[in-house]
């Protein structure tokens, strides 16, 4: 529906403007707070114009929290989660849409149901498994009466431990499934006639066609993985494996108990941590929007 009324246009723009201010203003305040010294920030009311302590604040925070290392950790985790999610989502959706086997729909629903079980809900068992990966198998074997000694694999404080529990995804599988179902069957048949097996069809035809979907999924998943707080907080005790997002909390408290929080440094850290996902979104935006709204090209 396209309306062409000046009054409505003005109203729409007005609403958009309000929404823009509402979303930008907090970020602006964060920015302002990160440019003052501690005394100025804690004054009531806080000044609304940037101060002149910006560079020293950022430099201090960068060194204090070893953000170089933490951002690298975050980058490794977020990238690996993104790649892992896309791979698994594409493969599982490919299997569900293009292959006929028993219990196909059962598996689909099984994957679908995991949407209802986010990491926060299953965090205790997930932690138990991360602490001893083969424990479920050991329990099963014991229950069945086998005596098989399985090695203990501990993923606490490792990249694998940070990444693997975040990788499996129903959202991605679902997105891919919807996309694959819009691809005409004749394309698969033509590929069959051309002699392409299932792998070639996936790699030569399906994946190139789903580029925009992949970009959309990558953007969402990168931001999702980057923003993970609870899981890294739980699983890493070694600061060398900490991610930037979870380390932010270490910046807030004052130097000693009872002293005011160091908001200026915390806000500077926040902006530093926000920057990479922001860049990813800006860079991927063109693809991202197309991948989510278009059903064909």
């Amino acid at each position, binding site marked *: 529906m396209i309306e062409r009324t000046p009054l409505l246009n003005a109203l729409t723009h007005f609403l958009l403007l309000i929404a823009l201010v509402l979303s930008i203003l907090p970020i602006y305040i964060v920015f302002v707070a990160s440019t003052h010294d501690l005394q100025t920030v804690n004054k009531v009311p806080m000044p609304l114009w940037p101060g002149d302590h910006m560079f020293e604040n950022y430099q201090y925070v960068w060194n204090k929290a070893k953000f170089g290392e933490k951002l690298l950790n975050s980058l490794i985790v977020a990238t690996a989660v993104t790649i892992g999610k896309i791979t698994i989502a594409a493969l599982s959706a490919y299997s569900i849409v293009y292959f006929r086997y028993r219990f196909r729909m059962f598996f689909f629903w099984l994957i679908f149901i995991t949407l209802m079980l986010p990491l926060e809900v299953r965090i205790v068992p997930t932690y138990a498994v991360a602490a001893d990966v083969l424990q479920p198998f050991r329990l099963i074997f014991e229950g069945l009466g086998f005596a098989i000694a399985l090695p203990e694999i501990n993923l606490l404080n490792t990249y694998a431990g940070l990444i693997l529990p975040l990788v499996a995804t129903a959202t991605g599988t679902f997105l891919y499934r919807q996309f694959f179902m819009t691809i005409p069957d004749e394309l698969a048949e033509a590929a069959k006639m*051309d002699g392409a097996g299932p792998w070639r069809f996936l790699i030569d035809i399906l994946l190139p066609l789903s580029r925009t979907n992949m970009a959309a999924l990558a953007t969402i998943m990168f931001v999702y993985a980057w923003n993970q707080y609870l899981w890294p907080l739980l699983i890493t005790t070694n600061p060398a494996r900490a991610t930037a997002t979870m380390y932010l909390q270490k910046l807030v408290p004052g130097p000693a108990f009872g002293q005011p929080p160091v908001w200026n440094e915390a806000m500077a850290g926040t902006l530093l941590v926000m920057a990479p996902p922001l860049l990813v979104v800006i860079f991927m935006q063109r693809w991202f929007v197309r991948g989510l709204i278009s059903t064909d090209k």
Partner: protein
Amino acid sequence: MSSIVFDRVAKTYDKTPVVRGVDLDIKTGEFVVILGPSGCGKSTLLRMVAGLEAISGGEISINGKIVNQLEPRERGCAMVFQNYALYPHMSVAENIGYALKVSGVSKAERQQRIATVAQTVGLTDFLDRKPGALSGGQRQRVAMARAMIREPKVFLFDEPLSNLDAQLRVQMRIEIRKLHNRLGVTSIFVTHDQIEAMTLADRLVVMNAGRIEQVGAPDDVYRRPATKFVAGFVGSPSMNLIPCAVASPSQLRADACVFHVAQSLPTGQKTLLGVRPEDVIVCTEQEADTVHMDVDFIEELGSFRMLHGRVANGDFCVQIPASDRRGTGPLAFRLDPLKLHLFDNDTGLRVDADPHAIAAAEIAQVA
């Protein structure tokens, strides 16, 4: 030598039979058109040859080898799809050459063969374009080129022209036939368009409800339809069919109308009398054995006119030349006994013998 042999081929979807026992021999280099209404199983039959549908019963062999269990790529068939099924992200050249790429042909040879095939179908200037930037006819050509490049033993066409506009359809029809004359590859072409079928086929196979109704040269099928289904389906405008009873051995009666036939039939039998609109002879009231009809509607078709009316409580069409400017109202006509088609009303099979065959037999007896 037979190139493709169907032996009691059947297809069932969840206990619903779609193809019910098809026997057919296709000779090497033959262009066979399978014609039938939608849902008659013709596409399913084609897809079973291609290997895209499992065969539920019977056997299909290609060049003497039973292919029931073979993968599509092992059967040596190439297929042209109704919606072309081009890979949208690949250029025309990549689309055409994909089969070669899959089978590991070197890049140099691939390019050379793509160039050759592209020239055959007139796509040389479009090799770098994406399918999205091509017209319907050009896409159709890409689909053809893609099928040709593998030098298949068999071409399969699944209603390839039905997405084109009328003019282009005629043009592509001629191109496909010329291509076949040049390459001489055994081809099966599935369509519901009888003009396509008549013009393209060496041999026409008419299918209905999963069975073959008639196999023959297009001209034979048109001249002597074997069943009442073929009589009604082949030919446009379609044949007039009037249910009659045999009144006396060479006379049929339907209500008040009496028709004379060239041969004797058992009295009392129910038959279906068929006559093509162009075989009706318009005459004057004074002539003997005339039938009367009230013309209530006239179709102007350019080269001829079609008079619509009712005879013996059924719709009836008479074709007259465009120069005959008569209007609606009473019309008298007679039927040439040699140009009538008689079918058993129950079995639908043709019951009259071929008058030419009878004549030939009489000549032989005299001699």
